[in-house]
């Protein structure tokens, strides 16, 4: 498959892995944070850590959109869904995120009308099809998804649609990275920068990370070779004594971002004075709300919101995991009280969440997994040639 296979080439990965190993200073341990949950998912899905020497640890960051949603906002959203004549719409990821009294799935089972959509424009379509209902879009995500929400509001305004609003939970990545940089219990050697967010905001906003905090950052793509290459680029900076923001994902990310998208977000939304993040607490200027001039499309103004605040469960260590202070398995409830089927923490919900990724893909002694897969390689590879021929003739 074009644009995919060339970034998953095992041969190239082996070559890159050798270069990475050669750049590692003997005796030194390196800790890099991949900020974005999409990267976490790629790392586990492809088993990328098998290519890294033991002296490099990847620390999973806070950039998973559903992971940072506090329980109170879920309860508020369910309260909105319980209003008469409301259809709540949401990305599928959000359906299982736990609130203080359950998730969207539980609320739906109890009788509310909550529907999964793939895009906010689908929500708008539902609004057009159901003029006697009020349709709410549960808007979540970083700068990656904020533009599509903003464009949807602009479209709704242009079409004069009156039965549509958004419950805005959009957050911004820079304050979260700052919170991590200022966290006293974490020592990082550099960042793998969030590629999707950067398609919108560009690379310039990260410059302070290098200049003020002395940490290199490489904005990376989402295929496994992208991530390996960005690890290599970080190591190269460290080896050469450089500390810069570099763009590995230049095939998609413009240095100055997407000005059209940023303008749309700026038109519809503005910064909130503060916003609560799951596990991280309240962070100033870290989230977006709908501007006064689009108040008609703001669920928070349309309805009386309970404004629920739910204390994180005492045993839950999502905050430490989100900041990269704890590895997922170091959390007390990991894999026992908190599992993907009954998640307590949000990191266990999304496939981009560090805990879910580790539980689903990485949970097990890497050595035993490696032994088991290598023993049987030869037999399978012999037959693979035939399988490929068959596959090719059918494709």
């Amino acid at each position: 498959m074009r644009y995919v296979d060339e970034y998953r080439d095992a041969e190239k990965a082996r070559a890159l892995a050798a270069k990475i190993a050669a750049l590692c200073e003997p005796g030194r341990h390196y800790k890099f944070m991949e900020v974005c949950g999409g990267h976490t998912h790629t790392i586990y899905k492809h088993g990328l850590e098998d290519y890294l020497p033991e002296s490099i640890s990847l620390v999973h960051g806070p950039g998973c959109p559903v992971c940072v949603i506090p329980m109170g906002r879920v309860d508020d959203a369910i309260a909105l869904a319980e209003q008469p004549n409301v259809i709540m719409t949401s990305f599928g990821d959000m359906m299982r995120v736990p609130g203080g009294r359950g998730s969207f799935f539980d609320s739906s089972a109890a009788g509310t009308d909550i529907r999964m959509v793939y895009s906010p424009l689908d929500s708008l379509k539902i609004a057009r099809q159901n003029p006697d209902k009020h349709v709410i879009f549960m808007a979540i995500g970083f700068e990656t998804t904020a533009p599509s929400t903003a464009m949807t509001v602009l479209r709704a305004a242009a079409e004069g649609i009156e039965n549509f609003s958004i419950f805005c939970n959009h957050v911004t990545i820079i304050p979260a990275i700052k919170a991590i940089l200022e966290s006293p219990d974490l020592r990082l050697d550099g960042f793998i920068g969030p590629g999707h967010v950067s398609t919108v905001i560009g690379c310039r906003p990260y410059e302070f990370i290098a200049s003020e905090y002395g940490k290199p950052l490489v904005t990376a793509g989402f295929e496994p070779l992208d991530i390996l290459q960005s690890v290599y680029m970080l190591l190269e900076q460290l080896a050469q004594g450089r500390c810069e923001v570099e763009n590995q994902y230049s095939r998609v990310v413009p240095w100055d971002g997407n000005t059209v998208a940023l303008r749309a977000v700026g038109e519809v939304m503005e910064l909130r004075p503060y916003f609560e993040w799951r596990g991280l607490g309240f962070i100033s200027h870290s989230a977006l709300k709908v501007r006064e001039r689009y108040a008609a499309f703001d669920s928070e103004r349309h309805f009386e919101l309970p404004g629920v605040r739910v204390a994180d469960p005492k045993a839950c260590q999502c905050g430490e995991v989100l900041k990269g202070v704890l590895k997922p398995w170091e959390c007390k409830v990991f894999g026992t009280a908190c599992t993907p089927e009954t998640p307590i923490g949000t990191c266990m919900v999304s496939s981009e969440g560090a805990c879910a990724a580790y539980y689903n893909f990485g949970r097990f002694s890497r050595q035993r997994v490696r032994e088991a897969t290598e023993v049987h390689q030869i037999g399978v590879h012999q037959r693979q040639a035939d399988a490929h021929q068959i596959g090719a003739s059918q494709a």
Partner: protein
Amino acid sequence: MTQHHDTTEQHQADWAEAAVAEHDSGHDPEHPGMYATPGTELRSREQLVLERIERARRARPRVREKLITLAHGAGGKATQSLIEAIFLDAFRNPLLEPLEDAATVTSGTARLAFTTDSYVVSPLFFPGGNIGDLAVNGTVNDLAVSGARPDHLSAGFILEEGFPVEDLRRIVASMAAAAAAAEVSIVTGDTKVVQRGKGDGCYVNTAGVGLLTSDLTLGVATARPGDVVIVSGPVGDHGITIMLARGELDIDADLVSDTAPVHGLVRGLLDAVGPDVRAMRDATRGGVATILNEVAKAAGVAVVVDEEAVPVRAEVRGACELLGIDPLYVACEGRIVVVVDAGAADAAVAALQAHPLGAGAAVVGRVAEDPPGLVLLKTGFGGTRIIDLLVGDPLPRIC
């Protein structure tokens, strides 16, 4: 960071505190290292945690939810918990307990395979078939992979007031054609009509019996280290076809459902290498990954899959990439997964390939001893990962 208290309601997540307390009370004094303290050597701490998780996973399944959610029907962990904690718990008997695709019952000297399945697919009509084809083929396939010769089927219909008779005619005509193709007869049935809004057009249930003519003992529990895992063709066609047919994604692909009766394919395989076949399953809801997990769990073995060897059509792979799902979890309706003795692997693949439905058959992996109960994937990229049971199916009402 500052604290703000401008909210009107504050409370605790009681359910979460209860879940934590429940697991705390299960603290095992024989494993004092369960909550390893920081400072212990890192690798051994991780190992302790992993052991703790394995114990939690082996615990008896429970249904904690007060209401049925869509997850209970998704074929993943929630479905498994529901079946084991509610149905198996109430109906428990030796015939049901193996939880195979069909039960083996005896009548006089005859051994019969007996199975049932309900169909709620949406949309009712899709490229490559409709709910009628699925309902006949699905039950025929459950019988066939149990090693039986499918014989007689029942058909039950739940129709919604207002459902077009013309649509019902089309569905029934497809069922008749599918039954003829599978050499079975539909010999009994039932019809119910519910008020408008209480159903979704048409639901179909079929049950079937088939004669077990050989003495083969098939079952996922019989897999042993060294065995080979084969799939009979490209995976995921049905699930992705349904997904695209719903029209929510605005993706077009030249793809049709793979719904088909596999009785002929199975017969060819059993004729060639019958005594060497350990287990066969049709890879429906939950896909190939779910079946391999059943093998690993039931037989206490590891299953090692080579991602590159798994046949997947380019269209399916592309759609899966866009949707962020793994083709190994996507439903098929005419593909089987076979576990055979390694010595018979080549003959098994050849027998499958000799049938039109098995032209794309391929060895995709092997059974290993360790680590027991897990399915491992050697990724195309060259790494390794676990393939667990799916949590939260992205594709509801696929069959």
